[in-house]
Protein backbone atom coordinates (compact mmCIF):
# COMPACT_ATOMS: atom_id res chain seq x y z
CA UNK A 1 0.00 0.00 0.00
CA UNK A 2 1.36 3.35 -1.07
CA UNK A 3 0.09 6.73 0.11
CA UNK A 4 -1.53 9.15 -2.29
CA UNK A 5 1.00 11.67 -3.58
CA UNK A 6 1.76 14.79 -1.55
CA UNK A 7 4.14 17.71 -1.46
CA UNK A 8 6.91 17.15 1.06
CA UNK A 9 8.41 19.95 3.14
CA UNK A 10 11.23 19.20 5.56
CA UNK A 11 11.18 21.74 8.36
CA UNK A 12 14.59 22.65 9.74
CA UNK A 13 13.14 24.73 12.58
CA UNK A 14 9.91 25.22 14.49
CA UNK A 15 9.45 28.54 12.67
CA UNK A 16 9.75 26.81 9.30
CA UNK A 17 7.18 24.24 10.36
CA UNK A 18 4.79 26.94 11.54
CA UNK A 19 5.31 28.92 8.32
CA UNK A 20 4.45 25.83 6.28
CA UNK A 21 1.30 25.31 8.36
CA UNK A 22 0.36 28.96 7.88
CA UNK A 23 0.80 28.58 4.12
CA UNK A 24 -1.16 25.38 3.70
CA UNK A 25 -3.75 25.40 6.49
CA UNK A 26 -5.78 22.22 6.84
CA UNK A 27 -4.26 20.83 3.63
CA UNK A 28 -1.09 20.11 5.61
CA UNK A 29 -0.26 17.48 8.19
CA UNK A 30 2.77 17.36 10.45
CA UNK A 31 4.93 14.24 10.19
CA UNK A 32 6.87 13.30 13.33
CA UNK A 33 7.65 9.57 13.64
CA UNK A 34 4.78 8.86 11.30
CA UNK A 35 3.62 5.68 13.01
CA UNK A 36 0.07 6.93 13.44
CA UNK A 37 -0.17 9.05 10.30
CA UNK A 38 1.50 6.84 7.69
CA UNK A 39 -0.76 3.81 8.29
CA UNK A 40 -3.76 6.09 7.73
CA UNK A 41 -2.15 7.50 4.59
CA UNK A 42 -1.34 4.02 3.27
CA UNK A 43 -4.99 3.06 3.72
CA UNK A 44 -5.91 6.40 2.07
CA UNK A 45 -7.97 7.29 5.12
CA UNK A 46 -5.77 10.40 5.32
CA UNK A 47 -4.77 12.17 2.12
CA UNK A 48 -2.94 15.37 3.09
CA UNK A 49 -1.83 17.47 0.15
CA UNK A 50 1.25 18.61 2.05
CA UNK A 51 3.36 16.75 4.57
CA UNK A 52 5.53 18.89 6.83
CA UNK A 53 8.30 16.68 8.23
CA UNK A 54 9.28 17.87 11.72
CA UNK A 55 11.15 14.67 12.53
CA UNK A 56 14.52 16.41 12.52
CA UNK A 57 13.71 19.16 15.01
CA UNK A 58 16.05 17.75 17.65
CA UNK A 59 15.51 20.83 19.81
CA UNK A 60 12.04 19.46 20.53
CA UNK A 61 13.43 16.18 21.86
CA UNK A 62 14.19 16.56 25.57
CA UNK A 63 13.09 15.60 29.06
CA UNK A 64 13.89 18.20 31.70
CA UNK A 65 13.10 18.79 35.35
CA UNK A 66 11.21 22.09 35.42
CA UNK A 67 10.58 22.34 39.14
CA UNK A 68 7.02 21.23 39.78
CA UNK A 69 6.73 19.37 36.48
CA UNK A 70 8.66 17.45 33.88
CA UNK A 71 8.91 19.19 30.53
CA UNK A 72 8.95 16.71 27.68
CA UNK A 73 9.61 17.89 24.14
CA UNK A 74 6.92 16.82 21.69
CA UNK A 75 9.44 15.01 19.48
CA UNK A 76 10.87 12.88 22.28
CA UNK A 77 10.73 9.30 21.16
CA UNK A 78 8.81 6.73 23.18
CA UNK A 79 11.99 4.78 23.85
CA UNK A 80 13.58 7.86 25.46
CA UNK A 81 10.53 8.43 27.67
CA UNK A 82 10.32 4.78 28.64
CA UNK A 83 13.97 4.61 29.73
CA UNK A 84 14.31 8.08 31.25
CA UNK A 85 15.38 8.12 34.91
CA UNK A 86 13.54 11.42 35.37
CA UNK A 87 10.30 9.98 34.03
CA UNK A 88 10.69 6.81 36.07
CA UNK A 89 11.31 8.81 39.24
CA UNK A 90 8.66 11.50 38.87
CA UNK A 91 6.09 10.05 36.48
CA UNK A 92 6.29 6.29 36.86
CA UNK A 93 2.86 5.81 35.31
CA UNK A 94 4.01 7.50 32.11
CA UNK A 95 7.17 5.37 31.90
CA UNK A 96 5.16 2.19 32.44
CA UNK A 97 2.42 3.05 29.94
CA UNK A 98 4.96 4.13 27.34
CA UNK A 99 6.59 0.70 27.55
CA UNK A 100 3.25 -0.71 26.33
CA UNK A 101 2.95 1.53 23.27
CA UNK A 102 3.11 -0.52 20.06
CA UNK A 103 6.27 -2.60 20.06
CA UNK A 104 10.01 -1.87 20.32
CA UNK A 105 10.29 -0.87 16.65
CA UNK A 106 7.40 1.55 17.01
CA UNK A 107 8.86 3.02 20.20
CA UNK A 108 12.22 3.62 18.50
CA UNK A 109 10.66 6.10 16.10
CA UNK A 110 7.25 7.10 17.42
CA UNK A 111 7.09 10.30 19.48
CA UNK A 112 5.06 11.30 22.52
CA UNK A 113 3.85 14.46 20.79
CA UNK A 114 2.81 12.61 17.66
CA UNK A 115 0.84 10.11 19.69
CA UNK A 116 -0.90 12.84 21.69
CA UNK A 117 -1.61 15.17 18.78
CA UNK A 118 -3.12 12.27 16.84
CA UNK A 119 -5.93 12.30 19.41
CA UNK A 120 -6.72 8.61 19.13
CA UNK A 121 -9.01 7.42 21.97
CA UNK A 122 -7.47 3.93 21.56
CA UNK A 123 -3.94 5.18 22.27
CA UNK A 124 -2.38 4.55 25.65
CA UNK A 125 -0.70 7.86 26.40
CA UNK A 126 -3.68 10.23 26.38
CA UNK A 127 -5.17 8.29 29.32
CA UNK A 128 -1.96 8.83 31.27
CA UNK A 129 -1.94 12.56 30.60
CA UNK A 130 -5.59 12.72 31.67
CA UNK A 131 -4.85 10.82 34.89
CA UNK A 132 -1.79 12.95 35.71
CA UNK A 133 -3.51 16.20 34.68
CA UNK A 134 -0.83 17.19 32.22
CA UNK A 135 -0.61 20.48 30.37
CA UNK A 136 0.06 20.69 26.65
CA UNK A 137 2.02 23.55 25.12
CA UNK A 138 1.06 24.62 21.61
CA UNK A 139 3.00 27.06 19.47
CA UNK A 140 1.42 29.12 16.74
CA UNK A 141 2.07 32.31 14.79
CA UNK A 142 1.25 34.47 17.81
CA UNK A 143 3.36 32.51 20.29
CA UNK A 144 2.81 29.76 22.81
CA UNK A 145 -0.25 28.84 24.80
CA UNK A 146 -0.90 26.23 27.47
CA UNK A 147 -3.82 23.84 27.15
CA UNK A 148 -5.08 21.74 30.06
CA UNK A 149 -5.37 18.11 29.01
CA UNK A 150 -9.12 18.14 29.70
CA UNK A 151 -9.50 20.85 27.05
CA UNK A 152 -7.12 19.26 24.54
CA UNK A 153 -9.05 16.29 23.17
CA UNK A 154 -12.25 17.39 21.45
CA UNK A 155 -13.41 14.38 19.41
CA UNK A 156 -12.36 11.31 17.45
CA UNK A 157 -8.84 12.11 16.19
CA UNK A 158 -9.56 15.76 16.94
CA UNK A 159 -7.82 18.15 19.29
CA UNK A 160 -8.04 21.81 20.15
CA UNK A 161 -4.85 22.50 18.18
CA UNK A 162 -5.56 25.03 15.44
CA UNK A 163 -4.50 24.32 11.85
CA UNK A 164 -1.60 26.75 12.26
CA UNK A 165 -0.41 25.42 15.63
CA UNK A 166 1.89 22.58 16.62
CA UNK A 167 2.25 20.75 19.90
CA UNK A 168 5.73 21.49 21.23
CA UNK A 169 5.83 20.35 24.85
CA UNK A 170 4.06 18.07 27.31
CA UNK A 171 4.17 19.13 30.96
CA UNK A 172 3.60 16.36 33.46
CA UNK A 173 3.27 17.26 37.16
CA UNK A 174 6.05 15.63 39.20
CA UNK A 175 4.65 12.96 41.50
CA UNK A 176 7.62 11.31 43.21
CA UNK A 177 5.50 9.67 45.91
CA UNK A 178 2.56 8.65 43.75
CA UNK A 179 1.37 5.10 43.36
CA UNK A 180 -0.15 4.05 40.08
CA UNK A 181 -1.51 1.25 37.95
CA UNK A 182 -1.77 0.79 34.20
CA UNK A 183 -3.98 -1.87 32.70
CA UNK A 184 -4.19 -2.63 28.99
CA UNK A 185 -6.43 -5.38 27.72
CA UNK A 186 -5.91 -6.69 24.21
CA UNK A 187 -6.05 -10.02 22.44
CA UNK A 188 -2.70 -9.95 20.68
CA UNK A 189 0.63 -8.50 21.70
CA UNK A 190 1.21 -4.99 20.28
CA UNK A 191 -2.49 -4.42 19.51
CA UNK A 192 -4.29 -1.30 20.60
CA UNK A 193 -6.10 -1.66 23.90
CA UNK A 194 -9.66 -2.94 23.64
CA UNK A 195 -9.93 -1.04 26.90
CA UNK A 196 -7.17 0.46 29.01
CA UNK A 197 -7.01 2.26 32.34
CA UNK A 198 -4.37 4.60 33.74
CA UNK A 199 -4.73 5.36 37.45
CA UNK A 200 -2.57 7.44 39.74
CA UNK A 201 -2.95 8.16 43.44
CA UNK A 202 -0.91 11.11 44.66
CA UNK A 203 -1.23 12.14 48.29
CA UNK A 204 -4.97 12.52 48.80
CA UNK A 205 -5.97 13.03 45.18
CA UNK A 206 -6.48 10.53 42.41
CA UNK A 207 -6.59 10.55 38.64
CA UNK A 208 -8.09 7.95 36.33
CA UNK A 209 -8.01 8.05 32.52
CA UNK A 210 -9.70 5.56 30.21
CA UNK A 211 -8.51 4.17 26.86
CA UNK A 212 -11.01 3.37 24.12
CA UNK A 213 -14.12 4.02 26.19
CA UNK A 214 -15.44 6.91 24.11
CA UNK A 215 -14.79 8.77 20.88
CA UNK A 216 -12.09 10.69 22.70
CA UNK A 217 -9.78 9.99 25.66
CA UNK A 218 -11.89 10.43 28.80
CA UNK A 219 -11.54 10.93 32.53
CA UNK A 220 -13.35 8.57 34.91
CA UNK A 221 -14.56 11.49 37.01
CA UNK A 222 -16.97 9.37 39.04
CA UNK A 223 -14.18 7.01 40.07
CA UNK A 224 -11.98 9.92 41.11
CA UNK A 225 -14.78 11.47 43.19
CA UNK A 226 -15.50 8.14 44.89
CA UNK A 227 -11.83 7.59 45.68
CA UNK A 228 -11.39 11.10 47.02
CA UNK A 229 -14.42 10.46 49.27
CA UNK A 230 -12.72 7.37 50.64
CA UNK A 231 -14.33 4.56 48.61
CA UNK A 232 -12.58 1.22 48.23
CA UNK A 233 -11.03 0.24 44.91
CA UNK A 234 -13.89 -2.09 44.01
CA UNK A 235 -16.61 0.40 45.03
CA UNK A 236 -14.96 3.21 43.08
CA UNK A 237 -14.35 0.99 40.05
CA UNK A 238 -18.04 0.10 39.91
CA UNK A 239 -18.77 3.51 38.36
CA UNK A 240 -15.86 3.42 35.88
CA UNK A 241 -18.08 3.14 32.81
CA UNK A 242 -20.64 5.70 33.95
CA UNK A 243 -21.10 8.50 31.46
CA UNK A 244 -18.92 6.88 28.79
CA UNK A 245 -20.01 6.05 25.26
CA UNK A 246 -17.77 3.14 24.30
CA UNK A 247 -17.31 2.19 20.64
CA UNK A 248 -18.42 -1.06 19.06
CA UNK A 249 -16.06 -2.89 16.73
CA UNK A 250 -14.89 -6.39 15.78
CA UNK A 251 -13.20 -6.81 19.15
CA UNK A 252 -15.99 -5.82 21.49
CA UNK A 253 -19.34 -4.19 21.89
CA UNK A 254 -20.16 -1.42 24.36
CA UNK A 255 -21.37 -3.70 27.15
CA UNK A 256 -18.21 -5.78 27.10
CA UNK A 257 -16.11 -2.63 27.15
CA UNK A 258 -18.09 -1.29 30.11
CA UNK A 259 -17.43 -4.52 31.96
CA UNK A 260 -13.74 -4.33 31.09
CA UNK A 261 -13.56 -0.72 32.28
CA UNK A 262 -14.88 -1.70 35.71
CA UNK A 263 -12.61 -4.74 36.06
CA UNK A 264 -9.49 -3.00 34.75
CA UNK A 265 -10.11 0.09 36.87
CA UNK A 266 -10.31 -2.07 39.98
CA UNK A 267 -7.07 -3.83 39.03
CA UNK A 268 -5.33 -0.54 38.28
CA UNK A 269 -6.46 0.91 41.60
CA UNK A 270 -5.35 -2.20 43.46
CA UNK A 271 -1.98 -1.94 41.75
CA UNK A 272 -1.88 1.66 42.98
CA UNK A 273 -2.42 0.37 46.52
CA UNK A 274 -6.03 1.42 46.94
Amino acid at each position, binding site marked *: *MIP*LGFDYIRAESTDEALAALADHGDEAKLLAG*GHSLLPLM*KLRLATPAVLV*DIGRLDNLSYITDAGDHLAIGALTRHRAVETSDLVRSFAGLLAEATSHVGDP*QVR*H*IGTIGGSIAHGDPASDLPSVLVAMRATLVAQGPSGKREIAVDDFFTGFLETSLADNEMLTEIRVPKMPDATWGFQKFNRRAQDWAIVGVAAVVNNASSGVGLVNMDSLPVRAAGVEAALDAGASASDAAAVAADGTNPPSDLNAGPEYREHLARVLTRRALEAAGR
Partner: protein
Amino acid sequence: MEVAVTINGQTYSHDVEPRTLLVHYIRDTAGLTGTNIGCDTSSCGACTVHINGESVKSCTMLAVQADGQTLTTIEGLADGDVLHPMQESFRQCHALQCGYCTPGMVMAAISLLDENPSPTEREVRIGLEGNLCRCTGYHNIVKAVLHCAEASA
Protein backbone atom coordinates in the same frame (compact mmCIF):
# COMPACT_ATOMS: atom_id res chain seq x y z
CA MET B 1 13.28 14.17 -4.27
CA GLU B 2 16.91 13.12 -3.79
CA VAL B 3 17.38 10.60 -0.98
CA ALA B 4 20.89 9.56 0.05
CA VAL B 5 21.36 6.84 2.63
CA THR B 6 24.16 4.58 3.74
CA ILE B 7 23.03 0.97 3.72
CA ASN B 8 25.44 -1.68 4.98
CA GLY B 9 28.35 0.71 4.52
CA GLN B 10 27.50 1.62 0.94
CA THR B 11 26.06 4.96 -0.10
CA TYR B 12 22.93 5.02 -2.21
CA SER B 13 21.51 8.15 -3.77
CA HIS B 14 18.34 8.18 -5.82
CA ASP B 15 15.64 10.57 -6.88
CA VAL B 16 12.35 9.19 -5.52
CA GLU B 17 8.80 10.35 -5.01
CA PRO B 18 8.22 11.63 -1.46
CA ARG B 19 5.58 8.94 -0.96
CA THR B 20 8.10 6.14 -1.57
CA LEU B 21 8.16 3.84 1.44
CA LEU B 22 11.55 3.02 2.89
CA VAL B 23 11.03 -0.71 2.35
CA HIS B 24 10.40 -0.10 -1.35
CA TYR B 25 13.50 2.08 -1.54
CA ILE B 26 15.56 -0.70 0.06
CA ARG B 27 14.12 -3.51 -2.06
CA ASP B 28 13.38 -1.91 -5.41
CA THR B 29 15.72 1.06 -5.63
CA ALA B 30 18.75 -0.24 -3.74
CA GLY B 31 18.04 -3.81 -4.84
CA LEU B 32 18.45 -5.32 -1.38
CA THR B 33 15.64 -7.86 -1.33
CA GLY B 34 16.57 -9.62 1.90
CA THR B 35 14.19 -7.32 3.76
CA ASN B 36 10.71 -8.73 3.30
CA ILE B 37 7.30 -7.09 3.13
CA GLY B 38 4.80 -9.02 5.20
CA CYS B 39 1.65 -7.38 6.46
CA ASP B 40 2.49 -3.90 5.15
CA THR B 41 0.67 -2.44 8.19
CA SER B 42 3.51 -2.28 10.77
CA SER B 43 2.19 -5.34 12.59
CA CYS B 44 4.38 -8.26 11.51
CA GLY B 45 7.92 -6.90 11.62
CA ALA B 46 9.13 -8.77 8.49
CA CYS B 47 10.42 -5.44 7.16
CA THR B 48 12.51 -4.63 10.25
CA VAL B 49 15.82 -2.90 9.55
CA HIS B 50 18.18 -0.84 11.69
CA ILE B 51 18.38 2.93 11.44
CA ASN B 52 21.38 4.23 13.32
CA GLY B 53 21.49 0.88 15.15
CA GLU B 54 17.85 0.74 16.26
CA SER B 55 15.16 -1.55 14.89
CA VAL B 56 12.38 0.09 12.90
CA LYS B 57 9.65 -1.13 10.56
CA SER B 58 10.58 0.06 7.09
CA CYS B 59 7.03 -0.35 5.72
CA THR B 60 5.86 2.49 7.94
CA MET B 61 8.56 5.01 7.09
CA LEU B 62 9.03 7.18 4.08
CA ALA B 63 12.37 6.97 2.32
CA VAL B 64 12.70 10.74 2.74
CA GLN B 65 12.60 10.28 6.53
CA ALA B 66 15.72 8.10 6.28
CA ASP B 67 17.61 10.61 4.12
CA GLY B 68 21.15 11.02 5.47
CA GLN B 69 20.80 8.15 7.95
CA THR B 70 22.79 4.97 8.36
CA LEU B 71 20.87 1.75 7.74
CA THR B 72 21.66 -1.89 8.25
CA THR B 73 19.69 -4.65 6.57
CA ILE B 74 19.97 -8.41 6.86
CA GLU B 75 22.54 -8.40 4.02
CA GLY B 76 24.86 -6.26 6.12
CA LEU B 77 25.25 -8.65 9.05
CA ALA B 78 27.52 -11.44 7.86
CA ASP B 79 31.24 -10.91 7.38
CA GLY B 80 31.79 -12.74 4.13
CA ASP B 81 30.96 -16.38 4.82
CA VAL B 82 31.02 -15.84 8.58
CA LEU B 83 27.53 -15.34 9.90
CA HIS B 84 26.64 -12.73 12.50
CA PRO B 85 26.35 -14.38 15.94
CA MET B 86 22.57 -13.96 15.83
CA GLN B 87 22.35 -15.57 12.42
CA GLU B 88 24.59 -18.38 13.67
CA SER B 89 22.36 -18.87 16.71
CA PHE B 90 19.26 -19.01 14.50
CA ARG B 91 21.03 -21.68 12.40
CA GLN B 92 22.17 -23.72 15.37
CA CYS B 93 18.79 -23.58 17.13
CA HIS B 94 16.73 -24.25 13.98
CA ALA B 95 14.96 -20.95 14.58
CA LEU B 96 13.30 -20.83 11.19
CA GLN B 97 10.74 -22.84 9.31
CA CYS B 98 9.54 -21.13 6.13
CA GLY B 99 12.03 -18.32 6.71
CA TYR B 100 9.82 -15.42 5.73
CA CYS B 101 9.90 -13.68 9.11
CA THR B 102 13.57 -14.52 9.67
CA PRO B 103 15.29 -11.35 8.38
CA GLY B 104 13.01 -9.19 10.49
CA MET B 105 13.30 -11.48 13.50
CA VAL B 106 17.11 -11.40 13.32
CA MET B 107 17.20 -7.61 13.00
CA ALA B 108 14.75 -7.16 15.89
CA ALA B 109 16.66 -9.67 18.03
CA ILE B 110 19.98 -7.90 17.51
CA SER B 111 18.42 -4.58 18.52
CA LEU B 112 16.87 -6.26 21.55
CA LEU B 113 20.23 -7.60 22.78
CA ASP B 114 21.87 -4.22 22.16
CA GLU B 115 19.43 -2.74 24.68
CA ASN B 116 19.27 -5.71 27.02
CA PRO B 117 22.31 -8.00 26.63
CA SER B 118 21.12 -10.61 29.15
CA PRO B 119 17.36 -10.88 28.81
CA THR B 120 15.15 -13.43 30.51
CA GLU B 121 13.01 -15.67 28.33
CA ARG B 122 10.00 -13.47 29.10
CA GLU B 123 11.93 -10.35 28.14
CA VAL B 124 12.84 -11.95 24.82
CA ARG B 125 9.21 -12.83 24.14
CA ILE B 126 8.06 -9.31 25.00
CA GLY B 127 10.99 -7.77 23.12
CA LEU B 128 9.98 -9.62 19.95
CA GLU B 129 6.29 -8.74 20.24
CA GLY B 130 6.56 -6.65 17.10
CA ASN B 131 7.48 -9.65 14.97
CA LEU B 132 5.08 -12.37 13.88
CA CYS B 133 6.03 -15.88 12.74
CA ARG B 134 3.20 -17.41 10.71
CA CYS B 135 4.76 -20.86 11.22
CA THR B 136 4.39 -20.17 14.97
CA GLY B 137 8.03 -21.15 15.37
CA TYR B 138 8.53 -18.90 18.36
CA HIS B 139 9.95 -21.59 20.64
CA ASN B 140 13.19 -21.98 18.76
CA ILE B 141 13.40 -18.29 17.88
CA VAL B 142 13.35 -17.42 21.59
CA LYS B 143 15.86 -20.21 22.22
CA ALA B 144 18.16 -18.77 19.55
CA VAL B 145 18.08 -15.27 21.04
CA LEU B 146 18.83 -16.62 24.51
CA HIS B 147 21.60 -18.78 23.03
CA CYS B 148 23.11 -15.76 21.29
CA ALA B 149 22.97 -13.74 24.51
CA GLU B 150 24.75 -16.52 26.43
CA ALA B 151 27.33 -17.02 23.70
CA SER B 152 28.12 -13.30 23.69
CA ALA B 153 28.25 -12.95 27.48
